[in-house]
């Protein structure tokens, strides 16, 4: 089973995406900001995909992405940034930091599952 890590400071967003992923048969780990997520990763969690919000307290998604890329075993893991319509600039910034792509909020469930299949081989 593929494990997906969700990072968002909005519990609503976590809940909505998690329910779609769980229903689709993915294992889901959540964190409410970059720092918490990073702690889980340095603690040994190795998700097959990370979906992270950009704008978060403690550690934003861009910094988080940069940090993840420094972690052994996480250098090649796909990372998708959760962005809003107006955050086009953040997408480029995220890619420069090592993100694979992005999702646009609010995320439609079939679109979400499609993107996961697109970026995670074997998903």
């Amino acid at each position, binding site marked *: 089973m593929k494990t997906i890590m969700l990072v968002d400071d909005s519990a609503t967003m976590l809940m909505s995406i998690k329910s779609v992923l769980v229903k689709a048969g993915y294992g889901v780990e959540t964190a409410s900001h970059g720092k918490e997520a990073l702690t889980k990763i340095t603690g040994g969690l190795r998700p097959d995909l990370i979906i992270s919000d950009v704008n978060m307290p403690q550690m934003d998604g861009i910094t988080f992405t940069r940090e993840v890329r420094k972690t052994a*075993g996480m250098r*090649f893991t796909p990372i998708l940034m959760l962005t809003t319509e107006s955050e086009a600039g953040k997408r480029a910034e995220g890619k420069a930091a090592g993100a694979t792509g992005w999702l646009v909020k609010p995320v439609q469930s079939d679109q979400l599952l499609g993107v996961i299949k697109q970026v995670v*081989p*074997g998903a």
Partner: protein
Amino acid sequence: MPLTLRDNTATITGTLTVEEVEPLAGWLRSTDRPRVNLRGCTHLHTGALQLLLFFRPTVVSRPLDPFLSTHIMPLLGKRNKELEASS
């Protein structure tokens, strides 16, 4: 395990991820006349494909996966037509 490394044959099954690129590279570097069995391979990471194109091991079994079989195999098999036929 997607990657099984024996004396001179590597067998790739299922999805070969980027994490297996390094061991495969090490094996290809250190193996004389390496042979690769792709029969059960459904996908290989771009890095692994590039390794096969660079080190040109003998591909001993055509993949069942239609994409690999149609589009990738012709390239890998270019110099190994006779072996491909015997597999």
